[in-house]
């Protein structure tokens, strides 16, 4: 080992950050991570890198194929598609994130209640869950979106539509983890030590459930992105003038028929890359953390 000084300095850097860097990152996970960083950068700086107003109309520049000034082309009103895609990506990510939070909170609470209280409560909640789970995600989402649109607005309705159809998986994960947790010794020790029901749930169960819940959340996220865009694509999601990825794709059908392939290619590609990156990272995390979850988290 005649290590020159340069490697010594990198190993110093490495040792300081060892906790953050896994020894071997698979190729796919590395690519997905980089992709996700780029996507987050785009979302954060959309106003700076593509500051043109999303609604700017310029008929002279209508339906132009991709060029240097507008790399993703323009739509039938002359709006720059790259601008709309970047801003739409932000809207879609935000909506799916909030919808996943709704599913996480609802599923987490119900799963925790079912697993911790057990007995009658458990079986009633599980039958309730079965009924919810046998609803078709997209169909039931459409009904919810239609029902709550006038009162909650398009954004609130879509959060509810995606959240209420996706919480069951989370509840199953939490309940399953909790049931195996209850058999552990430290739980018995806490009960013998006089811990009450709420203290047990908050101090002993929840911290052990967080990794599984976090992973379930990450794997849920691509689904939420897909369902948000599917609802918008069908016309019951975000309002048509708002650039979301689903709306851009819905608009693109008529543009495709006149030959403007770029109107559909780029929003869809963005949607695909985002969900692919998040999904791959989630699976990598799952396999690294606990391969046993593989079967339970097959979403």
């Amino acid at each position, binding site marked *: 080992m005649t290590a020159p000084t340069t490697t010594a300095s990198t190993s110093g850097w490495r040792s300081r950050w060892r906790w953050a860097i896994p020894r071997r990152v698979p190729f796919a996970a590395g690519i997905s991570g980089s992709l996700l960083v780029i996507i987050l950068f785009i979302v954060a700086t959309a106003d700076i890198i593509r500051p043109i107003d999303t609604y700017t109309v310029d008929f002279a520049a209508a339906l132009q194929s991709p060029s240097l000034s507008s790399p993703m082309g323009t739509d039938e009103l002359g709006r720059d598609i790259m601008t709309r895609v970047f801003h739409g990506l932000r809207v879609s990510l935000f909506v799916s994130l909030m919808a996943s939070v709704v599913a996480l909170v609802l599923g987490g609470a119900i799963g925790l209640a079912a697993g911790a209280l057990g007995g009658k409560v458990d079986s009633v909640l599980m*039958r*309730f869950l*079965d*009924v*919810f789970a*046998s*609803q*078709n*995600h*997209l*169909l*039931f989402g*459409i*009904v*919810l*979106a*239609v*029902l*709550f649109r*006038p*009162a909650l607005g398009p954004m609130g309705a879509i959060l509810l539509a995606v959240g209420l159809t996706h919480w069951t998986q989370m509840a199953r994960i939490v309940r399953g983890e909790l049931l195996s947790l209850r058999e552990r010794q430290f739980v018995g020790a806490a009960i013998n030590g006089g811990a009450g029901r709420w203290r047990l749930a908050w101090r002993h169960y929840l911290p052990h459930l967080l990794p599984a819940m976090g992973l379930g959340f990450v794997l849920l996220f*691509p689904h939420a992105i*897909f369902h948000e*865009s*599917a609802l918008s*694509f*069908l*016309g*019951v999601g975000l309002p048509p003038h708002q650039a979301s990825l689903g709306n851009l*794709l819905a608009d*693109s*059908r008529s543009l*495709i*028929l006149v*030959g403007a*392939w770029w109107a*559909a*290619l780029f*929003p*869809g590609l963005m*949607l*695909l890359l985002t*969900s*692919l990156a998040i*999904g791959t990272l989630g699976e990598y995390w799952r396999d690294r953390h606990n391969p046993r979850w593989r079967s339970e988290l097959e979403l």
Partner: protein
Amino acid sequence: MLGVIVRRLALLPLILLGVATLTFVIVAISPFDPIRAYVGAETPISAEGREEIARAWGLDQSEPERMIRWAGRLLQGDLGHSTMLEGRPVSEALLERAGPTLVLIGTSLALVLVGGLIAGVLAAAFRDSWFDWLVRSVSHFNIAAPSFWVALMALYIFSVQLNWLPAAGTTDLRGEGGTGIDLKHLILPAVTLAITQQAWFTMYIRNTLLEVMREDYVQYATAQGIGRTALLLRHALPNALIPFVTLIGVNMGEIIGGSILIETVFAWPGLGTLTRDAALSADLPLLIAITIIGAFFVIMGNLFADVSYRVLDPRIRETGA
């Protein structure tokens, strides 16, 4: 064996009742105003007019009473009347549109079965070759790619650019094809729907085959000097086929959801486009009927998966039941 099926079948009406109740309760607690949706958001309506519609639709009764009446009519097969189609019975509209959807789903399932079987077996046979790599990459892409986007791109390539296949509908309205379904019109929707479902089936076949190949009886057959092809097809494949059949049932929901989106892209006059139109005009009776039927198929799919698994795998048959 028979007992399990009977028990599962006995549970079926209970789950369906649960689904119907859930749907009714959600509609009842939602702030949705069906009369407002019917006359339109901008149209003024007098209090008398409102009362008249409410009486005609039975909205003036109490909620439990409405629920019981609605469930009773549901049991008789009366799914209510569509507001979008000017009071036509929902069941009539559904029956009229069911044909094209069944043809679409049936064709794409056949494509998935044949294509997934061939690709999965070949990928397992030539493990880690370029073909295996290709199958796996395409499958990963198909899982992540939104179905309606794949459909849009296929529409552009094969219909707009190459002009090989028609872009919309079931038949050429100018020709003498009548009102039937033209094969040329079926290709694009069926193939894109199959593409969205292909990945699960193919990867399942590949992975189960590789798993089965490690089993003792396969090792024994190898030791007896059996050839590679015979080993794969005669010994490994029958066992890999068991989860294959059940997967159709499990994926029923995905297939229904995919058909709604694909039908919308290709203007296929089936239940999917009907659902979309009902959603856009907030036609609640129609939407609820479709949702309950959708749930019915999901439940039946799961039941089918469970039963077929028991019928096909003697090991479960003996220990279960």
